[in-house]
């Protein structure tokens, strides 16, 4: 078959969602081609050897949200997926103290009690409450959002289903659920805890990938979104993939190939061919034309609808909505090749605290000030940093004795204030990150062999993430569920017949979940049955 230039489905983009999408379609008997612009697969879930001997998870660096049903269906472990546990979060404080939460319940309880007995008790309660919330939201992650504006019974049933589930909760859970959907992370946490550093470091997961501060309403939901992590059934567990995040994409790609998917890298799309309202195929940058019955795009709406398709093929108000869709990337990444381990003032020497996440989020005010800088077009002078040292858990990513330090940094607003550009600010940004960490681990400067700085502009240029948003669009309330990516088009279909969306810009949003790709595949199959 190879060589023949017509397919059932062409998937644009070989990110994790595109690959999941392709795998599911191929397993249903479709002839699928995946076209990836870069030389490596995985999109933002990739591993690259930037410094000889050091394998960086260049963008996405931890995994937790990957849907269990996908791991099962695609039998990913057999294709080489191995998730290594990431134990706990270590938060150094400016006072020389620290907060160290681990997966061991007793230890964490004692540690929090060291800061506040009340909070130690509340922490257990909080965990239970969040689990209840997750039980409510989880099924929503695996469901195609309803269209609340139609009277179509199937859609109404979904709304009824949601209503029933909500009714089913105890009024205590309802209370929490409503708050989670509407409150700011800090306001929500304020109700549970008194220890500032605890609230600060917990609220951090409420802002990741958004252009919001820990005090902005709506961030409590994102908090939950990151709380839903699950690895081998272990609740709220985060981990690394052995061999770096790229290993996840490779496992999925392997499963896809086994199912018969053809994957081409370094094949950039120039255009999506549309004839009388139907998507027919794609034109590659090199001019080749490839035809297919269905085009499934895993890239974001801005690329799909304003770059690859001529406006004439799209309804005006749809385009309006697409242009209105908010990206506003707010984070960057700094990866370092290290000669030795960083040495933290508050807990000197190597130790288990370096094996988990290390969070620079010492105080709520610190987090909020970091956001204030961004609001006016500056990267945070003292940013929130979430770092991991995967080489401690997975020696394969660095030469013996050496280490990889992977730093997620927020805020790094895509739109800098007039007069500044990321091309000129890039270095200063990298240095700010190093300086910030050095305040807690002074030896860092001396042990850096090389560092790679990834700005929001890089994310856009190199990974095709518009405005450098890691979730293909902000995870803000007005861009979730049946409003994602744009009102009326939340069911993976588009105004162009036979053209579908399957990326993070669709429900349920960003993170290495794969749910988007899977749900889109199921919708595509539903339609093709209808057609057949």
């Amino acid at each position, binding site marked *: 078959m190879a060589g023949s230039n017509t397919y059932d489905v062409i998937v644009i983009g070989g990110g994790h969602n595109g690959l999941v999408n392709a795998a599911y379609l191929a397993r249903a008997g479709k002839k699928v081609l995946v076209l990836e612009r870069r030389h490596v697969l995985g999109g933002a879930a990739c591993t690259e050897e930037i410094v000889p001997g050091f394998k960086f998870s260049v963008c996405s660096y931890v995994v937790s949200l990957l849907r269990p049903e996908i791991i099962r269906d695609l039998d990913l472990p057999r294709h080489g997926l191995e998730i290594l546990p990431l134990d706990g979060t270590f938060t150094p404080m400016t006072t020389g103290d620290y907060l160290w939460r681990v997966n061991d319940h007793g230890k964490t309880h004692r540690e929090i009690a060291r800061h506040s007995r009340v909070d130690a008790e509340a922490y257990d309660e909080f965990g239970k409450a969040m689990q209840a919330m997750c039980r409510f939201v989880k099924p929503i992650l695996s469901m195609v959002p309803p269209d*609340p*504006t139609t009277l179509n019974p199937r859609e109404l049933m979904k709304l009824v289903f949601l209503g029933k589930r909500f009714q089913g909760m105890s009024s205590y859970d309802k209370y929490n659920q409503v708050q989670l959907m509407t*409150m700011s992370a800090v306001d929500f946490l*304020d109700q549970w805890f008194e220890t500032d550093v605890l609230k600060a470091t917990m609220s951090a997961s409420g802002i990741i990938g958004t252009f*919001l501060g820990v005090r902005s*309403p709506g961030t409590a939901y994102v908090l939950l979104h990151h709380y839903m992590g699950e690895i081998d059934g272990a609740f709220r567990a985060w981990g690394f993939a052995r061999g770096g995040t790229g290993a996840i994409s490779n496992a999925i790609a392997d499963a896809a190939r086994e199912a018969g998917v053809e994957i081409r890298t370094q094949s950039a799309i120039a255009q999506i061919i549309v004839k009388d309202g139907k998507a027919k195929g794609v034109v590659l940058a090199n001019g080749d034309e490839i035809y297919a019955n269905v085009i499934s795009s895993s890239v974001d709406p801005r690329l799909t609808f304003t770059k690859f398709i001529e406006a004439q093929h799209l309804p005006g108000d749809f385009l309006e909505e697409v242009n209105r869709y908010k990206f506003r990337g707010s984070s960057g990444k700094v990866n370092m090749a290290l000669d030795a381990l960083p040495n933290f003032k508050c807990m000197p020497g190597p130790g288990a605290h370096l094996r988990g996440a290390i969070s620079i989020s010492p105080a709520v005010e610190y987090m909020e000030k970091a956001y204030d800088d961004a*609001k006016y077009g500056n990267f945070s002078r003292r940013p929130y940093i979430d770092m991991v040292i995967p080489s401690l858990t997975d020696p394969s990513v660095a030469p013996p004795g050496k280490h990889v330090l992977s730093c997620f940094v927020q805020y790094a607003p895509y739109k800098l204030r007039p007069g500044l550009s990321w091309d000129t600010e890039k270095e200063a940004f990298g240095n700010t990150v190093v300086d910030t960490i050095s305040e807690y681990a002074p030896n860092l400067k001396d042990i850096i062999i090389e560092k790679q700085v990834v700005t929001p502009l890089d994310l856009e240029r190199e990974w095709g993430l518009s405005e450098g948003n890691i979730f293909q669009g902000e995870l803000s*309330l*007005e861009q979730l569920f049946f409003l994602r990516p744009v*009102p009326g088009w939340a069911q993976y279909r588009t105004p162009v017949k036979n053209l579908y969306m399957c990326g993070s810009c669709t429900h349920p949003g960003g993170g290495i979940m794969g749910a988007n790709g899977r749900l889109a595949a199921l919708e595509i199959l539903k339609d093709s049955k209808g057609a057949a």
Partner: protein
Amino acid sequence: MPAQRDVVIIGGGHNGLVTAFFLAKAGFKPLVLERSAQVGGAAVTDEFHPGFRCSTLAHSAGPIRPDIVRDMQLEKHGLKLITPEVAVTALSPDGRALRLYQDANKSAQEIAAWSQKDAAKYSGFQQSLTKISKVIAEALATPPPDIDHPSSGDLWSMLKTGRAIRNLGKKDMFRLLRWGPMAVADLAAEYFETELVRAVVAARGVFGTFLGPWSAGSALVLLIRAAGDPHPAGSAHFVAGGAGAITQAMASAAKAAGAEIRTSAEVIEIRVQNGAATGVLLSTGEEIHAKAVISNADPKRTLLKLTDPMHLSPDFVQKLQHYRGNGTVAKVNLALSGLPKFVALNGDGAALKGRIHIGHEIDYLERAFDESKYGNFSRQPYLEATIPSLTDPALAPEGKHVMSIYMQYAPYKLKGDWEDQRKALGQTVVQTLAQYAPNLPELILTHQIITPRDLEDKYGLTGGQIFHGDLALDQFFTMRPLLDWARYKTPIESLYLCGSGTHPGAGLTGGSGANAAREILNDLKR
């Protein structure tokens, strides 16, 4: 033997008076107990300087719900609304002024001088706002449904609201869904490119709240406001005699209907026996028994201060303690020896008759908000000033004027003590205004400065929150004040709430009072 009444209402604010009226009209004999010497709560007019009278706190009239004005026949009781042609005059530091009129087309023409695009979009924005706000108004006028066991009535009103939403049509329906949780700055930016226009629209979404224009959910505040008044920047409604005249008219209407009102009667405790309110205790030691006690005071004051929390479940108390109400508004009233000269207006007096808006760009408003997050009042505040003596000369001696100014942000939780910063606050306000009206300082005969502290101490607004609790996504509708307790009832039998801390809250509309009366009547008649 203490006096026996059928209904006692704690607090003679506008909502308390509205509730009193409707109960009296239904044949009850409500007794309104007001702590201060005059009724009105936050809607009062005082002579703060010999010959100078001014709306002490609220200076705009709501807008009061028209049906309430009708039912209470407030005009007959002396209410005279004043609606100047210019609704808002927004000033820009570059010496320009933007006049927004009551009339959309006239406003559009004015905006055209700044941006043709914005002018074209203005009326479209007002139309969408009108359509959507009609639906919201419907929801606001009905008591929120009981989430746990909706009654047939609830289902019916939900159905009605649902139908109204459907009738919006797909486009506006999605707008409603999408706008609610948005930041008002984003909403304004979707329509307008001129910063001044964006700012004056956004201001409505943050006034009185602990939100900045970039805070998610501020768009909903705008929509709630728009429900009573779809003017994109808010129209200007004043009352002859100041805001106090509204509550005076309400009081007289309530009395005429058979309610009794006692001023200088401070309730210090709500008496509760086996889970039911039995009456109130006054500071004088006098006890008044009642079949039902209705509180116009805010939820925290009512249930955590006036009531012994031992009558409430720990869970409820904890939730109520988490009900957020951090004031952000201060008030400055000036007695002026003459009319200040605003450079941008070169003598156009008409432009000063509406609300004068200071806060020329989104970032200006957001920065003002930033300072309050860290416990400082804005050094470059967002101001809304009015000169009521222009439209109502009786308020000041011949040729002299009064100026009434809302200042935001003045956080209740201040680093340091409000007493020490009262003067500084006043100076900041005057200096800010002086940038636009340089001769203002020398005209000032006296100023009255009201900090969030004063709002709590003198006017009983917990946390100095003018709306009896933050307007935020999680404290609206069925969640105001608390989820499952949004129906004017409390866990204590025959103790009810009717103040702004209940749905729909927000401003001088009388909505809470009217909704509460309806619910309470259903109960009492059982």
